[in-house]
């Protein structure tokens, strides 16, 4: 991913980018759609993480997130959520499947 977040090392969107190449898009259009992909991934990761945390840990997580300290954020999350990376990857893979399906659906457009 272009922008770094505490989960960036877990996410790979090359496969979606390759699918997008099949749709003839301008550079600006590609950039816009890529930013939407990243925004959707960001949202689903935040939801996945928050859903696993207690009320107090959610507060700590939000504080860490705002401080932009990725290492501290990840350290805190790993201490609170078992199999954190697997859970994030699973959520993102599910989302990516939906996004790829959307791209394939564009071929049906006349």
């Amino acid at each position, binding site marked *: 991913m272009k*922008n770094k*977040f505490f989960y960036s090392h877990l996410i790979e969107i090359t496969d979606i980018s390759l699918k997008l190449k099949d*749709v*003839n*898009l*301008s550079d*600006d*259009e590609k*950039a*816009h*759609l890529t*930013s*939407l*992909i*990243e*925004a*959707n991934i*960001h*949202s*689903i990761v*935040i*939801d996945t993480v*928050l*859903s696993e945390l207690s*009320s107090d840990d*959610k*507060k700590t997580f*939000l*504080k860490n*997130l*705002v401080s932009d300290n990725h290492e501290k954020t990840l350290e805190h999350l790993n201490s609170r959520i078992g199999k954190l990376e697997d859970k994030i990857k699973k959520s993102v893979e599910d989302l990516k499947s*939906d*996004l790829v399906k*959307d*791209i394939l*659906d*564009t071929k049906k*457009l006349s």
Partner: protein
Amino acid sequence: MPGKKDNYRYQFLAKKWTDRHREFQSKIFAKHEDSFKWFTDNSKQLVIGSLAGIMLLTSPILDKIPQSISSVSAQVKTIDKRVFLIYDLRNVLPNEVRSLTPEEEKNVSEILVRNVGFNVVSELDGKRLNTTYGIIGQEQHLSRFSGDNMFTHFDSSDQADKYWSYGMAPGLGAFGYFTDLSGTLTQQDIDREKYYIAVQTFLAPGYDNNTKDYNDFFKYRKMLVINPQNGKAIVADIADAGPSPWTGKQLGGSPEVMNYLERFDGSQIGAVLYFFIDDPNDTIPLGPVNL
């Protein structure tokens, strides 16, 4: 160069993924609202002035969409800003549609000022309406000058196609014609009719004691009207009095106002917020507000 067909595909994906992102934001906020609220209340060191501001945490999209590309991009940003407005308002509005308390009006006013960038108030020059939160009904077009009719009323065939069916009100607005003759019709007159609302001026506190003074105050007074469910806001002007209290509605909107706010009459009737705009130099234009 991508052809029209491919642009169609881009539009399809942009809309679908923008909608998905909005749904994520709504879901996250609803599920974890308490934590976001706590964080807002306890993060004095951060420049986050509202509950909506914290939602930025769940959306890195705002500063990442290319500025130059298309109206779709602008639309995405507008939608995101509106999401914040909706959340902020939801946090301070009562569940039922009723007159707001002074504290509630103050909270709403602060949110609106922060979002639209100009001053809006529930009371201006010591005058206020019977409510600032009410059910809006559909009004018809008003005759702007003697002889104005459905054939003279529209600027373009597109406008006529869109708004013809609402028809022309059989009588004049509460303040008469907008101008004396068709030849003297100005853009201001056109906009005043196009973006008019009818409010219950006659129920304003103090109205009966000084009718003329109040009518002078209300005539073409600019108000910010907001649909709190979709965050759409429009600068409208008071050009008619009504509706009758027995209708159960508190105000009415021109076809153009209702269309923009996505408010409907009948079974889908809904509420809006309406606050005076403090605009002594008349610098704020009538029409939709770009958030």
